[in-house]
């Protein structure tokens, strides 16, 4: 697993529940380090154990934890980079939705060895979409639900999102775009100071 992903999950937990809580996860996982390095790779099993550990500590479903990770990545002011990089995907939420097909390629452009699941947006008309997410990162769909929800807010769009499970090896997210310009949204200027690393 790419360290960026582990690091993101770590930062989510630490920033949301505090350094002590994160220290407890480190102890439970018996890690011989306390911080994931975003530019290194780790055993994928460790990532899953980490999420399980967090879910147990919080008394939540792991799906809920993953969705919270997605929301955190976009809406936490400490982490500007993912929101900004995703906003480059399009001027409107609809453009953004259509840019998701390119997301794995965009991610690879930024970080060569970062492999994200394949994403495919299907447009059913009448503002109904399905996002298919397939790859080794089972559960990534839940992170995406959090990301999409936060990005909709960011664009000021009103959407209905539902993770409907796994079909033929792909996680499916049903998206209903109720109103593209529901609220003001956050402004996105291309030239704001470079995003800080996490």
């Amino acid at each position: 697993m790419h360290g960026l992903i582990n690091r993101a999950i770590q930062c989510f937990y630490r920033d949301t529940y505090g350094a002590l809580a994160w220290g407890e996860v480190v102890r439970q996982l018996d890690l011989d380090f306390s911080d994931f390095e975003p530019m290194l790779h780790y055993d994928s099993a460790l990532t899953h154990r980490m999420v399980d550990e967090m879910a147990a500590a919080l008394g939540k479903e792991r799906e809920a934890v993953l969705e919270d990770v997605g929301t955190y990545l976009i809406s936490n002011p400490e982490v500007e980079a993912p929101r900004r990089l995703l906003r480059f995907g399009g001027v409107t939420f609809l453009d953004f939705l259509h840019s998701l097909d390119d997301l794995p390629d965009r991610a690879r452009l930024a970080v060569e060895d970062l492999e994200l699941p394949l994403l495919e947006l299907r447009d059913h008309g009448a503002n109904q979409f399905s996002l298919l997410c397939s790859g080794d990162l089972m559960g990534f769909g839940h992170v995406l639900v959090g990301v999409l929800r936060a990005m909709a807010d960011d664009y000021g769009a009103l959407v209905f999102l539902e993770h409907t499970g796994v079909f033929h090896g792909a996680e499916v997210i049903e998206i209903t775009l109720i109103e593209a310009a529901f609220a003001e949204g956050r402004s996105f200027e291309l030239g704001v100071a470079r995003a800080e690393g996490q």
Partner: protein
Amino acid sequence: MGPNCDMLDMFCPMHLTLDRAGHIAHVGPTLAKLRPDQVLVGQRFLEVFELRRPRSVEAMADLMAHAGTKLNLRFRDGQQTGLVGVLVAPPDFGGGAVINLSFGISVVDAVGDYALTGADFAATDLTIEMLYLVEAKSAAMEASRKLNLRLQGAKIAAEEQAFTDTLTGLKNRRAMDHVLSRAASGGGRFALVHLDLDFFKAVNDTKGHAAGDHVLQEVARILVEETRTEDTVARVGGDEFVLLMSGRMNRKRLARISERLVERLEKPIVFGEDTCQISASIGIVLSEDYAEPDIAQMQDDADFALYASKHRGRACHTFYDLSLRNAAFAGAAPPSSRGDNTTN
């Protein structure tokens, strides 16, 4: 203006058109955004923009002569953002021209200076992708930079915490301090042997540091060979070594070991064409001579005994005894003149 301008606004939102006299007739929406407080239409193009390359373009006719070539220009007043452009004079344009502009390499600053958004660029323009890349790469680079800093810090910390003397592979002083304090608190008996090479400085001075390093490595090999695996051998200074011999050691055995060590160390060491000749002086203390083994005291005493060996003419060993100090007081050479900190 006509439908052509609508099309151009869409395709080239930073274009402008000039009439045959060189006045600005129409400005694309993004270009207009760069000078929100000015009405550009109606102004002379060459009064608004300064042509930096090609130079000496002063009239519309000069400008038209450069149709199809790359123009470098900038605004004359306000934020002097650099621009690149190209001029086309379509035959049906009544002697006027279309100039399409772009930011060129100044785009990263320009989008910030003018608060531009994705909607300000044509859908086919790769500027947004480029800005994405700049930002993504900066974030990735920053993460790499931080990782490098952390790794560098970890390397320094690891070196500081190292227990090995890199030249000889023996333990270093830090390691010996740990072993000694464990031995002292462990309650078992042990002997502490301080060994200082004789004539080593001469080897270093006359045959060079490479020869000196080789000699130290050979010495280390001999010390390891002449001790048991449960003993600890450390290089604690340039040519100073400490041996911790654990278990019940009597003076007779220690004397035999010391003699063998001196004998072996005195054998000439070959280094390339050179032959290096050294010897060693040794001072020994036994833990059983102390009611309560005090490491600092034992090291000090071993050092004192070592100095006595030096004083006796080197290439020998001395067991520490209180009488050594008495003798020193009685007028023998004062041993405290050793300028190092072996006792620490």
